[in-house]
């Protein structure tokens, strides 16, 4: 009789983990598969992209067909959003190829171009297109809304508010109030804005779409987070998740709240199916950091994230600088690198999360937080996490 070491299932899993996780890390070494039946790649499922095959074939036959091209581009953009998969943005842009480089493409193309440009953080170019659209078509609600969103992300609140104001006669009450309340909540009118938005949502609950509700609930949850009302925030995140469990922005924001409350197991549960999305894989790694004994798994995830950021760097992408700064600060423990990234990111966008990572990096790196501290003063940002960092920076100075 042979003696075999009997392992409990959980211990076996633990032993297997490093092997399973290191497989993708042994990257880019070419190999010859051993068997013909071996599944090498699983194509993006759900049939989302496949449904578009017919449209794509039709467009290939008539690439100049504007209606066909814009409709395909719109559907690819929707797919890019729902799957958080940037490849579809490239497909959308390709569908618009005949008009893409024109100085003044048809209005529909211009709107889609602005959408694609802002999703790759080319905010200047996007704003140029949006300004052109509203100059020609002042009734274009989508253009005003996208313009307000881009300006809000850039922290240009006065201009953003003006854009929102134009929406009031063009879009539903909920949309225009959401637009304005979001800005207000970031610029010195937090309490009032949150109440206004909450009331407006309750009033319009019967007429709104789930997508819009998820958007509003996410913003409301973030507002509650900023004033330190974690349980209210959590309720709202949960309500939003019930409507759309796969919204990656929502998942990220909720995960951050849970991370702040040191509830890592819930974070892992929340995001573990979304490891394809860099921002959510980052949250997963940050959660593991709070769990004792997850060293091997954490190391593998850190390596994976590092590979992904390197891949983005190689192609010259800067879309993930905020996440990368967090990665450098918290997982690589490299505050100087984190601060450099946070500064670059700050030049592009100025959301509350951008403020926070900048201050955190500056605090650890003992670097200069002056520009952001000034900005907090002038913008009137109210955020308990940010306030705490400001106090720490002042105490250290």
């Amino acid at each position, binding site marked *: 009789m042979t003696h075999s070491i009997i392992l409990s299932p959980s211990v076996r899993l633990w032993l297997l983990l490093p092997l399973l996780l290191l497989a993708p890390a042994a*990257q880019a070494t070419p*190999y010859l*598969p051993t068997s*013909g039946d071996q599944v090498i*790649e699983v194509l993006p499922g759900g049939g989302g992209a496949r449904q578009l095959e017919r449209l794509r074939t039709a467009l290939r036959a008539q690439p100049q067909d504007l209606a066909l091209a814009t409709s395909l581009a719109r559907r690819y953009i929707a797919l890019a959003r729902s799957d958080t998969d940037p490849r579809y943005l490239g497909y959308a842009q390709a569908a618009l190829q005949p008009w*893409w480089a024109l100085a003044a493409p048809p209005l529909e193309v211009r709107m889609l171009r602005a959408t694609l440009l802002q999703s790759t953080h080319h905010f200047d170019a996007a704003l140029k297109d949006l300004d052109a659209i509203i100059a020609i078509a002042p009734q274009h609600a989508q253009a005003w809304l996208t313009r307000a969103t881009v300006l809000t992300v850039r922290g240009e609140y006065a201009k953003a508010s003006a854009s929102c104001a134009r929406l009031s006669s063009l879009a539903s009450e909920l949309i225009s109030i959401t637009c304005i309340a979001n800005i207000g909540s970031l610029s010195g009118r937090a309490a009032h804005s949150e109440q206004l938005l909450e009331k407006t949502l309750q009033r319009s609950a019967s007429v709104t779409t789930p997508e819009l509700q998820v958007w509003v609930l996410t913003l409301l949850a973030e507002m509650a987070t900023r004033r330190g009302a974690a349980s209210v925030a959590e309720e709202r995140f949960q309500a939003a998740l019930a409507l759309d469990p796969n919204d990656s922005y929502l998942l990220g924001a909720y995960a951050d709240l849970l991370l702040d409350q040191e*509830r890592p197991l819930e974070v892992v549960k929340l995001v573990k199916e979304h490891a*394809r999305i860099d921002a959510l894989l980052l949250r997963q790694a940050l959660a593991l950091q709070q769990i004792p004994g997850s060293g091997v798994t954490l190391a593998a995830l850190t390596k994976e994230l590092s590979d992904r950021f390197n*891949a983005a760097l190689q*192609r010259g992408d800067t879309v993930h600088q905020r996440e990368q700064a967090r990665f450098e600060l918290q997982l690589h423990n490299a505050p100087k690198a984190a601060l450099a990234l946070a500064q670059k990111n700050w030049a592009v966008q100025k959301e509350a999360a951008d403020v926070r990572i900048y201050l955190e990096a500056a605090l650890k790196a003992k670097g200069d937080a002056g520009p952001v501290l000034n900005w907090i003063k002038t913008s009137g940002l109210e955020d308990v996490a940010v306030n705490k960092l400001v106090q720490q920076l002042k105490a250290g100075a």
Partner: protein
Amino acid sequence: MMRRFLRFPSIVLALLLGCLSLPAQAHKPSDSYLKLSVAEQTIAGQWDIALRDLDYAIGLDRNGDGRLTWDEIRSHHQDIAGYALQRLTLATGAGACAVTAGEQLIAQHTDGAYSVLRFQAHCPDPVDMLEIGYRLFADLDAQHKGLVQIQHGDNTSTAIFSPEQAQQSIALRNPGKLSQFGAYVLHGIWHIWIGFDHILFLLSLLLPAVLVAATGHPSESLKASFFDVLKVVTAFTLAHSITLTLASLSPLSLPSRTIESLIAASVVLAALNNIVPLFRGRRPSVAFVFGLIHGFGFASVLADLGLPRDALAISLFGFNLGVEIGQLAIVAVFLPLAFLLRRSWFYGQLLTKGSALIMLLASVWLVERAFDIRLMPV
């Protein structure tokens, strides 16, 4: 601090974390990774292209189940090679390189499995400027990028291709303008240092600088000697710079045997002048005339080194500067010493017997060079 997760039994934790080991492939924009190793006329290529992108372009999933097996991929190898290589052009100044597809493997990148296409390219001449045309997926995915890495000897260069930047020329022998400049400065210094004929010519002309031309008595002021040296050196420099530049930038060239013989002759004359005054106050003019000949000598050295086409002017200037630096170093040592020793017995001996020795040596060179024979060992 109270940590809530400690309440979870460890088995739950293990199971929860166990689920993380599912393949975590990133969602990222499309890239391909093209590695080119250049050796003379041949290029070995390895091109990693995402299977997902290839499926989108040419359809690899024959049974439409969303899962690509090795058999499905393998059966499309010819299509993949044909599709990809049609969208890549490699060329040198002399024309296109002929590309032959090799084996295909699989590699794992952050966003999934890639087909690894190996190929060989034969170019019409040794590659020093590689022109790459990259159009893979340009019509399908406007945000696709080709990340190209070129290895050539110890150097690696990289380039990013996109539909907007589909055509790029990459210089392979490109050590950078500044280091190239520096290298030519060193060549210049080195050449004057090992060029005894140039040094002896200059020294022969400079020996009388610490004496008064009209009388042959030691000069009274360092200033007068300094200006004398300055005039001679400037004339020499000006002259050889002119011919060096002319000869390097134009097809103008004289037979090197003639030049080398004339240089030897110039040394003989310069040394003779110290024994039998021939030029007296016209030493700067003599320095200029013979400087023209020495310039041709420098030019032939530079021609042997080869001037890089893309950095012609800067290399020429660097070489010239190097020659001047070497020359000034010699002068900087010579002048103070000569001035201090000008009244000594030794200096008189150096001027006459030393010059005679130089004459003798240069005469041997002259005969050797003029008749292409060897009189001295070495």
